């Protein structure tokens, strides 16, 4: 059981990677595309909009984390 869990966790980590936000965002936007298409409306715009949003959010978050850790390092150096 532990080995199975470890394997499942390893596969999930391999697929989702370091950023779960991207994985979740992709799944939600694919589902939204299917719903909009099912309603008979044009749905091709959903994924490009989602990609733009996800990429911007991911990069912004990574930059903020980098800035925070740099300022923490600088504060501890000053102290």
């Amino acid at each position, binding site marked *: 059981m532990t080995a199975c869990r470890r394997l499942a966790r390893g596969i999930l980590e391999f697929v989702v990677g370091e950023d779960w936000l991207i994985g979740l965002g992709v799944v939600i936007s*694919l589902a939204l595309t*299917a719903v909009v298409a099912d309603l008979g409306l044009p749905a091709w715009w959903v994924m490009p909009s989602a990609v733009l949003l*996800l990429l*911007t959010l991911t990069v912004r978050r*990574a*930059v903020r984390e980098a800035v925070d850790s740099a300022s923490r390092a600088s504060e501890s150096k000053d102290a």
Partner: protein
Amino acid sequence: MSATDVGLVASVFLACAVEAVEAVTIVLAVGTTRSWRSALAGAAAAVVALAVIVAALGPALTALPINALRVAVGGLLLIFGLQWLSKAILRASGAKAEHDELLIYEQESHAARAAGAAGEGIDPYAFLVAFKGVLLEGLEVAFIVLTFGANQHRVGLAAAAAAAAVLVVVTIGAIVRAPLSRIPENLMKFAVGVMLSSFGMFWGTEGAGADWPGGELALLAIVPAVLVTAIILVRAVTRGARRRAATSAERRGLPA
């Protein structure tokens, strides 16, 4: 060759070349410091394991219904592509350290020397490090080969593009016998991120039941659009970093 075939070959070749550079760096480090025979045997065993994975899963994937396959493949390519692309944007803008093959080579060599002297015959350390390095770097490529190949029913073409990339990188590695630091790895990762995200978006949308205006020709607009978005983000992050540096210099009373 159709537009999607060209995209398939370019994406698989670049992704595989990038991962092959990383794998060759590890094999070179353990081969030089410990045992060439063991390092090459480990690398060869990993290549065989990857070929078995592709050969076993390829036909199984191509048997899936096309729309289910496109949603799964599109989603996975998009997840991989966006991760590659966001890291490439951060590296290109200086917010993240660039991938440094020389540093990785030195770290691997140091660890190999610290592991003690290699004995006679096959050296387990060199074999395992080379095996693990090639397998882990290769798994992502095997995934890309499978997803691109299965979706277009061209697993053979995708595998050939991957093999060509490995051959080119290994040949260069064998000639220079040094870390492949001159290969523009970060630029290649940027290109792969753009291609995977674009194809992922295209197939995911089609698999979910939507139609692109212009069908396959939409890719000619999607790829440049993703590239331009990524370049705009690189510039925005670079500008933000400059602004922060200027503010910080101002606070310390230094010239910006």
